[in-house]
């Protein structure tokens, strides 16, 4: 490694140093191929600008406006934010979203880790297991939801109820009851999303130095002690990242409540994002786009603050 750094710099690098020292003018920029950079950059800038940044700016502006997207918008100051904060459904949506996040944390977070650790322990057919774990991610979400809807049929002849009936359980109402609807959504979401996280953990597990396991084995550790004292500490960086990604993801859960229950029964699965959707689209005579963008902005700010706080708190542990 040291020999590399002591070698004389290659000609290109030397030229770069010289150029950096020279006064840069538009002419030198042009001669130095700046135009090419720009040409290559343009498609990305245009696409991001048009489809990512411009909508963000527009929604920011819209949160202070009243508009039906047809007639000219009116400025309404903070009225949209007031409207959202006074909506009785907001508290319900926040509570439901937190409930989903908590359930997803309890059910959904450990499952991929457990699966990854088990899969890394097996010696044969590793590829097959990874493929099986990843398969649900490949299934288009709408197809998966339709499938799960059939499984969740609440009659005694439904798929899950039949299977559970064999061991004397159920029948359960699944999506058709205010208390079981949310856990049902989490179960389906975990099935659909675990594969991606499993792959991340499997990759991270490969980077754990085998010497550590050998040393642990010499010290007489069994499999669980190895997992607890070697695997988990080695994975903590990845674990922290997947945790924050999961929290941000669950705070924005939309697909499952939208497709499974439409927020029902009786608003028991209305989430913050579904509420945003309802503000914007529920009314056929032109939605409350102002309230929708205002709530989106509030959610974005809360998540940004949460992320910042989280990274601050965990900086010392995850290094």
């Amino acid at each position, binding site marked *: 490694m040291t020999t590399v750094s002591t070698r004389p710099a290659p000609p290109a690098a030397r030229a770069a140093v010289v150029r950096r020292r020279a006064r*840069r003018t*538009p002419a030198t*920029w042009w001669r130095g191929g*700046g135009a090419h*950079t*720009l040409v290559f*950059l*343009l498609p990305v*800038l*245009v696409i991001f*600008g*048009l489809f990512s940044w*411009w909508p963000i700016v527009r929604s920011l502006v819209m949160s202070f406006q009243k508009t*039906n*997207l*047809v*007639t000219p918008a009116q400025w309404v100051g903070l009225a949209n934010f007031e409207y959202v904060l006074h909506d*009785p459904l907001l508290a319900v949506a926040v509570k439901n979203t937190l409930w989903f996040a908590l359930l997803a944390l309890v059910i959904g977070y450990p499952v991929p880790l457990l699966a990854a650790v088990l899969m890394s322990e097996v010696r044969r057919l590793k590829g097959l297991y990874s493929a099986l774990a990843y398969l649900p991610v490949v299934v288009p979400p709408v197809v998966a939801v339709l499938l799960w809807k059939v499984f969740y*049929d*609440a*009659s*005694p*002849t*439904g798929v899950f109820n039949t299977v559970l009936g064999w061991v004397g359980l159920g029948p359960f*109402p699944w*999506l*058709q*009851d*205010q208390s079981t609807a949310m856990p049902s959504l989490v179960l389906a979401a975990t099935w659909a999303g675990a594969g991606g996280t499993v792959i991340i953990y499997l990759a991270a597990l490969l980077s754990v130095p085998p010497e550590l396991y050998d040393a642990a084995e010499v010290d007489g550790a069994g499999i669980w002690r190895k997992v607890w004292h070697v695997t988990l500490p080695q994975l903590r960086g990845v674990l922290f990242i997947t945790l924050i990604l999961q929290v941000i993801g669950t705070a924005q859960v939309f697909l499952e409540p939208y497709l499974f*229950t*439409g927020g*029902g*029964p*009786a*608003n028991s699965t209305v989430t913050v994002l579904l509420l945003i*959707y*309802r503000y*914007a*689209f*529920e*009314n*056929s*005579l*032109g*939605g409350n786009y102002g309230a929708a963008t205002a709530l989106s902005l509030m959610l974005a700010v809360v998540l940004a603050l949460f992320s910042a706080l989280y990274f601050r708190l965990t900086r010392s542990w995850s290094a």
Partner: protein
Amino acid sequence: MKSARRATALTVAGALALTLTACTSSGDDGATDADADGRITLRVVSLLPGSEQAAIDAFDAQVAEFEEANPDIDVVPEEYEWKATTFAAQLAGGTLPDVFEIPFTDAKTLIANGQLADMDAQLRTLPYADRFNPAILDAGTGEDGKVYAIPAKNVYGVGLHYRRDLFEKAGLDPDQPPTTWDEVRAAAKKIADANPGVAGYMQMSQNNTGGWQLTVNSYARGGRVQEVDGDGRATSTLDDPATVEALQWLHDMRWEDDSLGSNYLLDWGTINEAFAAGQVAMFTSGSDVYTSMVQTNGLDPEVYGLAALPLEGDDAGVLTGGTLAAVPAGASEEIKDAAIRWIDFFYTGKLVDEDRAVADAKTLTANDQPVGTPVLPMFDQAQYEQNQEWIKDYINVPLDQMTSYTDSMFDLPLVGEPSVKTQEVYALLDPVVQAVLTDEGADIPALLETANTQAQALLDQE
């Protein structure tokens, strides 16, 4: 220097973005909608997404017929289902066809918002323009007295749809459908007991249809959900005793009889699906829903029955609604002229012109599509009966299985949908219906009280 480069890049990107937006928006005010051959392209609503091939064939045959008679118009059919949740975005985004369909309840506001094209001059070119039922034509008329949305497709009264096969299996006479809500309840219980897993009766509960059907049930017991005084001030009356009664009835069927099956989250499309599949034995919906259940859900006509909605109490009435055809604001005169020719051909002309009525019926029967589904008259009763006479040789819907409805359809008192913030009020009622269906201890008066307060707040908003 780095920042200068970035600035240049952003300027260029910004300029390009502006050019792009300029390009895309210039399409709106294009001078002509005609193509190279001078033909006008007219995008029209065709069928519900997922319709059977035979229905698509029948529609295509009608398009071919129209294009032959109107060689200067190129009709492009687009599948369409009006949904409260997608309509506003489609309209604002300019992705609706040139001729689209809207419910009666939405027209006035869309007109006031300037979102529909003025079709008054075009409507007046139709020889039968002044023969429309004035009350129905009014639904699509603006404050300025001009017609923006034209009665089309249907005017419906709500009826009770039932499965004759499930009635028979439960030992009930399919020719004697229930005529009171108590009889509906008793029949539902028998059917559910005789056919495990089947809902003897079920009611829509999702995507604003829960509120719509609760309103139907409230009207049928003499209730109202909204009152509008002479000054246009609307008062919400969701806590009407008839509405409480309608919900209590539903609650008892769910929790005492267990006759509502096991799926309590259904909307217009999914309840049609469940009924056609034999999972639901009775439900209430527009009288014309038979057509779409045949076209989209493969309903077997043999098993279908339609009964009049039971009416009880003073002032009880059948909820009525319907569909209007409209053209987006900003459409060119050429498009509007082409649109009225299509509306005349596809929707209204066949109701008043014998040749057209017969031609239309012929095309539909040739493709095994329903002809003669009972709807309410768009003109008057005499015209309706005349029309039925013209097409009587082609009628292929099982009218003898619908006599309970057709015998009384002109005698039942009709009540229009609530006129102010209809969909938003319906949306407030969805969770109330769902709560009754999923919570045995649901406090009906309290739920309605809360919804009523919220509805009144909506009505008081400017």
